[in-house]
């Protein structure tokens, strides 16, 4: 698979992720869907405590898409000012490109 990555929620005793591994770059809308699926895996309280982190992660996906996609080696943690309990949402692109617009596919 030429394109791999994951979004994950960690900290506070939680470790959940949504990964992708495919032959074509992950479309931006699927990146957003991965975050939504990840969020739905969490209990409501965990969702609430990571609300800002998820917003920031979605914003990053849109920003990356405008720049042609996030390339391999992308590693983001939100919120950037970490919570004391380390609850966070990470966006990682391990291989290839992710979050591409329809025109770039």
């Amino acid at each position, binding site marked *: 698979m030429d394109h791999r990555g994951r979004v994950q929620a*960690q*900290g*506070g*005793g939680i470790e959940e992720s949504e990964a992708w591994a495919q032959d074509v770059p992950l479309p931006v809308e699927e990146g957003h869907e991965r975050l939504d699926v990840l969020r739905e895996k969490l209990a409501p309280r965990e969702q609430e405590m990571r609300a800002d982190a998820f917003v920031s992660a979605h914003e*990053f996906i849109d*920003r*990356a898409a405008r*720049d*042609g*996609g*996030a*390339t391999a*080696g*992308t*590693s*983001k*943690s*939100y919120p*950037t*000012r*970490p*919570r*004391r*309990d*380390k*609850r966070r949402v*990470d*966006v*990682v*692109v*391990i291989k290839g490109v992710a979050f591409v617009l329809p025109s770039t596919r």
Partner: protein
Amino acid sequence: MASHLYKNFLVDSGEYAASVEYWRRLWESIDQVARVAADWRTPWVHTGSPLIQDGNPIFSAYSPSTRRGVRVIQFEPSGNEPELDTWLDTFGGDIRDPDSITELVIACALSDFAAREAARLMESWVSGGGITAIFDTRRSRLEVEIKPLHDTTLVDLAA
């Protein structure tokens, strides 16, 4: 009270470049023998695109031989107190994956204090030690416990 540096780095491209250079020079001050012996390389991971200058991360390095990495996230100061946090994570797979990199993550508002403590953490990590770090913001003190390599574990500092 912290002496913050490049407080406007997210809105001033000159300060952003200066921040990047600051961390590069700080990294160069870390044990050169240990860095060379373990073939540490920089940069490693990045912000997603050269156009994205959000300090997330501002610096990174990794050693392919020890499967260790360092990632620094810089954020804007929220006040006059020092702000620094640290944790361990993995890149490229979970900790059971032999291809994964175990990374030391440091998130901070850049200040003399944060730089000094970040350097201490990096020194230990590069030299093969494990880290347990507790940062007491009330007393502006970072307590760092250095452990032998085989004791390295992922530590949830909030636990």
